[in-house]
């Protein structure tokens, strides 16, 4: 590939006239200008010092709750004094360099980045001397076993990471099961079908999240609660029954037009509740996947692939909404073993 750089020699149309003559700055030739610049620069440094004192005064004097222009007065004062001081110092130093410091450009010669042939030869000789004295080349057994042990060193460093987390166990049941009441998120109150009007949306959770044990502690709390919420959160919506087109087998999953879907997007798992009551579309605010809740949660737009899992609903003896079973589809974002887990779920039902 060394061929094609045969550019014609001596074809430069214009000869290098060399560095132009130095031109002076006003401050180099005019003593008044020079003095003025000096005063200007030291003025900046002096004001900077004052501002830094102002910073300390602000820190001590200003109350945390005070506001200024609708902003925190403390934040503004500290930031403005500190920032102003730093800016003045910076501008002053640069101005000093530009106006007063030496102004003659210097020329430094370049050298090729690579070493000379001589240097290379010398270094190679040193390297070879070292290698030969070590016997690295002559003793293959030592060499190979060394490489072996070095390679084996990777094993403990990898295996040590094993306890970073448990092995993935794929799809696990959510908190939903037969008879689990659907309760209003935050309030934890159970819901009757008559509570819901057509066009209503309820952000809901399984009742167990609000249950307490006999000591008055929540049954589920802390990290576990967050993990369960990220799978079991649901939305309950009510549509006119005639607007709903249930798939085969899902005809009885709703109660008088009340349907329940997973709140966790099947794309990357954002909680979705942007439900348009007139179009029955549900939009994810993160990546705009859109699901049609009147049509079994099918995807109508956006990057999500799988429909939103639907939770079959019924009414218990007290007239409250309950789940008939857990989700029959995997909730949340896809993962490599999803196809297998889904098949297992299908086989079960």
């Amino acid at each position: 590939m060394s061929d094609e750089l045969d550019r014609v020699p001596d074809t430069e149309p214009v000869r290098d006239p060399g560095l132009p003559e130095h031109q002076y700055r006003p401050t180099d030739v005019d003593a008044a200008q020079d003095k003025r610049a000096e005063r200007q620069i030291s003025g900046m440094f002096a004001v900077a010092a004052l501002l830094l004192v102002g910073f300390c005064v602000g820190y001590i004097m200003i109350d945390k709750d005070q506001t200024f222009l609708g902003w925190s007065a403390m934040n503004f004062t500290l930031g403005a004094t500190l920032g102003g001081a730093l800016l003045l110092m910076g501008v002053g130093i640069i101005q000093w360099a530009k106006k007063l410091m030496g102004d003659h450009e210097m020329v430094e010669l370049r050298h090729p980045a690579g070493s000379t042939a001589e240097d290379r030869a010398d270094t190679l000789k040193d390297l070879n001397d070292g290698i030969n004295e070590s016997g690295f080349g002559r003793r293959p057994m030592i060499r190979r076993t060394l490489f072996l042990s070095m390679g084996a060193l990777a094993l403990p460093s990898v295996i040590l990471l094993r306890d970073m987390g448990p092995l993935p166990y794929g799809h696990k049941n959510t908190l939903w099961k037969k008879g689990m009441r659907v309760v209003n998120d935050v309030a934890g109150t159970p819901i009757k079908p008559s509570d819901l009007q057509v066009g209503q949306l309820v952000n809901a959770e399984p009742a167990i999240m609000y249950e307490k044990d006999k000591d008055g502690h929540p049954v589920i709390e802390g990290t576990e609660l967050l993990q369960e919420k990220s799978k079991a959160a649901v939305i309950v919506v009510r549509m006119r029954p005639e607007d709903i087109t249930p798939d085969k087998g899902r005809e009885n999953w709703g109660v008088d037009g009340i349907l329940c879907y997973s709140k966790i997007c099947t794309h990357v798992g954002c909680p979705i509740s942007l439900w348009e009551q007139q179009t029955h579309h549900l939009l994810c605010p993160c990546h705009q996947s859109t699901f049609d809740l009147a049509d079994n949660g099918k995807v109508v737009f956006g990057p999500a692939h799988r429909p939103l899992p639907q939770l079959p609903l019924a009414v218990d003896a007290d007239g409250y909404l309950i789940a008939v079973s857990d989700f029959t589809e995997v909730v949340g974002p896809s993962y490599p073993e999803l196809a297998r887990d889904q098949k297992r779920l299908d086989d079960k039902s």
Partner: protein
Amino acid sequence: MRKLSTRRRHPLAGIVVLLLALGVVGGVYSAVRFQPASAETASANDVKAGRNLFLVGCASCHGKNASGIETKRGGNYGPSLIGVGAAAVDFQVGTGRMPMAQSAPQAPAKDPEYTAEETRQLAAYIASLAPGPAIPDDEYTDISGKTVEQIREGGEFFRTNCTACHNSVGAGGALPGGKYAPKLDGVSAKHIAEAMITGPQQMPVFSDDVITPEDKSNIIAYIKQVQDQPNYGGMAGGGLGPVVDGLFTWIIGIGGLVIAAVWIGAHGARVKKK
């Protein structure tokens, strides 16, 4: 209300609304305005005045009996208003969403076309047709004595039910096809409560049986408190989050510092001779 938006896209909607607006401004305004004002409660006079207003300003879309007008294709030109209640009228007319000025994916809030008195009369008329949600009273909107605890709980309800569309500081957000969740800044407590009760346009209903009136007032108290909070850190960029931060980074941050770099690298004034 439910199918209002589908009918709004009708090709004739714009013309109709324009005529409607002309009618309101020109003829009826004076005729109705000078009728003697009635007591606070809806009287028969209110209902009658409301019906007169309705026939002139609303019936062309919603039908003479407010039962809606069906299009030939079976859709709704203007939805039936029977049973929507006074709250829906007060919200739609009181925020200027109704009457619509033009065909659009969604009716935007604007200056109301009707006076408070006329709005009350319209509401009285619609409420007289069939029972529906009434205009919320102080139970919903009185947020004066809210405790820290109640406001915190209102915040939890707000983040669970509202922020997904309306944004965590109520700055609003996008919905499909040019629709949007409006911003909550400057919306009165009464209108927020009415919106939750009636579910205007694409917004779902949040009925009192699920989100109780007290919960609703807590939500409103939280919204008002968050919007009254100072922007502690300075100019807030409309509460729109990282997109605006990114704009500031590039325009103000990089813009300013590149100007500084140009200044540092500039050769400066020169004179001819020493």
